[in-house]
């Protein structure tokens, strides 16, 4: 009886948290997912609800700022950043050997040559565009982005990337309750990341990173660069690609940095514009 109680309790809290996350950026009138299409795939919207009457001017302005990017499919023009040739030159298509192949990665593989798996770059381009678009939207709304990678070779690079865009990084030993036990780990009232980007989904012992499971538990969307030996199931935006070559990692870091900076600059621009628009008529 008690176990059922706690299970329901956690379900309620998880569902409530998901809705709260929606509330953070959007007014309660809108549904969580708004329709947009990328690469010919259409995503259905939830049934739209009647909008409330306009209240104060300030909230109207924020409303406009937040709703504007959602009108166009590729508002931040991330498709310009990603090109197939660039991915090929950075050796993103090189996977591991056939023996290391994960069963769930088979749909993302182009083929296998001399026992080496080749990742399908057409799919990579699509997935990468989705992922970058999502990152841009999150950064535009002032969300916290956490870069995670347990690959020691690129730890310094990832931390520098995070520092440059003004976001956060965690490339060290992942303690158990960092996300799930956040209030005790960090202090009461901490704000957990709104997006976690895994630049390498495996940890030092070639097991799936604990952060993927924890992010799924805490309803935090995750982007992950999955190699041919990784498990893409729990990630919201998997990006099939090579995660072991320095060139490929530098490319990913550069792409994420550029999108985040672009999104943040756009936000500042929007705020200035809307600020001018709102104060303009008052002055007259």
């Amino acid at each position, binding site marked *: 009886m008690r176990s059922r*109680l706690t299970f*329901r*309790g*956690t*379900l*309620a*809290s998880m*569902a*409530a*948290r*998901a*809705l*709260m996350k929606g*509330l953070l950026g959007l007014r*309660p*009138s809108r*549904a969580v997912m708004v329709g947009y299409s990328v690469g010919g795939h259409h995503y259905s919207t*939830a*049934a739209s*609800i*009647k909008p*409330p009457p306009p209240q104060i001017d300030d909230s109207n302005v924020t409303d406009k700022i937040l709703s504007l990017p959602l009108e166009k499919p590729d508002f931040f023009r991330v498709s310009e950043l990603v090109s197939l040739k660039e991915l090929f030159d950075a050796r993103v298509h090189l996977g591991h050997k056939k023996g290391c192949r994960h069963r769930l990665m088979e749909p993302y593989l182009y083929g296998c040559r001399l026992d080496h798996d080749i990742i399908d770059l057409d799919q990579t381009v699509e997935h990468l565009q989705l992922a970058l678009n999502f990152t841009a939207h999150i950064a535009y709304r*002032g969300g*916290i982005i*956490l870069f995670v990678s347990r690959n020691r070779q690129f*730890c*310094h690079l990832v*931390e520098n990337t*995070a*520092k440059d865009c*003004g*976001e*956060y*990084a*965690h490339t*060290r030993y992942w*303690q158990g309750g*960092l996300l799930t036990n956040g209030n005790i*780990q*960090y*202090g009461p*009232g*901490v*704000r957990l*990341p709104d997006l976690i980007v895994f630049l390498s989904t495996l940890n030092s012992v070639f097991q799936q990173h604990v952060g993927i499971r924890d992010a799924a538990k805490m309803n935090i969307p995750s982007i992950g660069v999955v190699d041919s030996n990784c498990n893409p199931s729990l990630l919201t935006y998997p990006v099939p690609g090579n995660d072991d070559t320095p060139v490929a990692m530098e490319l990913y870091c550069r792409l994420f940095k550029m999108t985040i900076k672009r999104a943040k600059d756009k936000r500042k621009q929007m705020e200035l514009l809307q600020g001018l628009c709102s104060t303009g008529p008052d002055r007259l």
Partner: protein
Amino acid sequence: MAASCARTVGSFLGKCGSCSSSISAVTSQLSRQVLSRQICVSSALRRKNLAAAGPEKYTMEYIKKQVEEFDIGKRHLANMMGEDPENFTQEDIDVRVPCCLCGHPDQVFPKQRAIQWGEDRRPFHFLFYTGKQSYYTLMHETFGKILVIEKYQDRLRAKGLLTKDIKQISLSASRWLKKEELEELLVENISIQDYNRFIQLMESLLSMPYCTIEEEFVLRYRQNLEAQSRKQAMPVLERDERGVAFSTADGRRKTSDSTVTLRDCGSGRITINGRDYLQYFPVLQDREQLMFPLQFMGMLGRFDLECTVSGGGRSSQAGALRLAISRGLLSFLSDGEMENMRQAGLLTPDPRVRERKKPGQKKARKKFTWKKR
């Protein structure tokens, strides 16, 4: 947390009309169930678990208030003592009120971290989510320095100017900061493994030939050792009426006390208690003990020794004299030679004394015959 979430969910559902999403429908049922369950919670659960709260955490306002009160109290004390309230320092308080148990609030309250995030609840530090931000920043910085040195070395190698013999950082006069000192520096708790990792990384930095570029960074994490050769109490170098330099020194060993006067420009004559040393010490071993300090410095025939010794036996008197001679020699020597003498053990008084006899034993260590039954 669940209750508050449920309440907000309830209010949100109330605001807008019907929602067609299934999740919210389920949530409304569950939230109502949860809400109804929350009411019949016993008072025992509401009581605060004080033990689980941990050590008392002082807020920034509380500490600021304490500091202000301390300053006001200090000014009152200054007025009472008739001192100038502006320049009343902590030392004055310690002198005037020696029994004052508490000091400045900054020393009383342990160093704590301020709230790590701003108004929008975004953390300030980019490594906040690791949990140990200062320690990992330090590791990040150190690794950055290693990369800088490597790049520098690569550039020199490309130009062909790479040499192995460059001045290295002098590390003999310092030691690595201990774990407690590092914790104090970082205001964070680190484990032993973390500390060892840090030391390893620093050692690898120092193993590179051109590490002198980052000398200042390395020395920040090293503690200077106290000078090993403490300034020996050197006897004064006096001059008598004829202008000959001489010095007097004491020495002790076991129960013997000795006083020695070394006179310069001598011929190596040694007088003990008015008698010649050959007469006083018939045994070669004792005479060797006397000669050892002079022979070590190579000044055998230079000095005349006038010694007095009392107490103890033959060997202990010889040892006392040896120590006295070494001490007397100090005033004629340079620092480097003094260090040599110290390393040879000539300046260390022998601490061994006769151990007392214990009851229940035959002698100091010898026990009575042990019988099995």
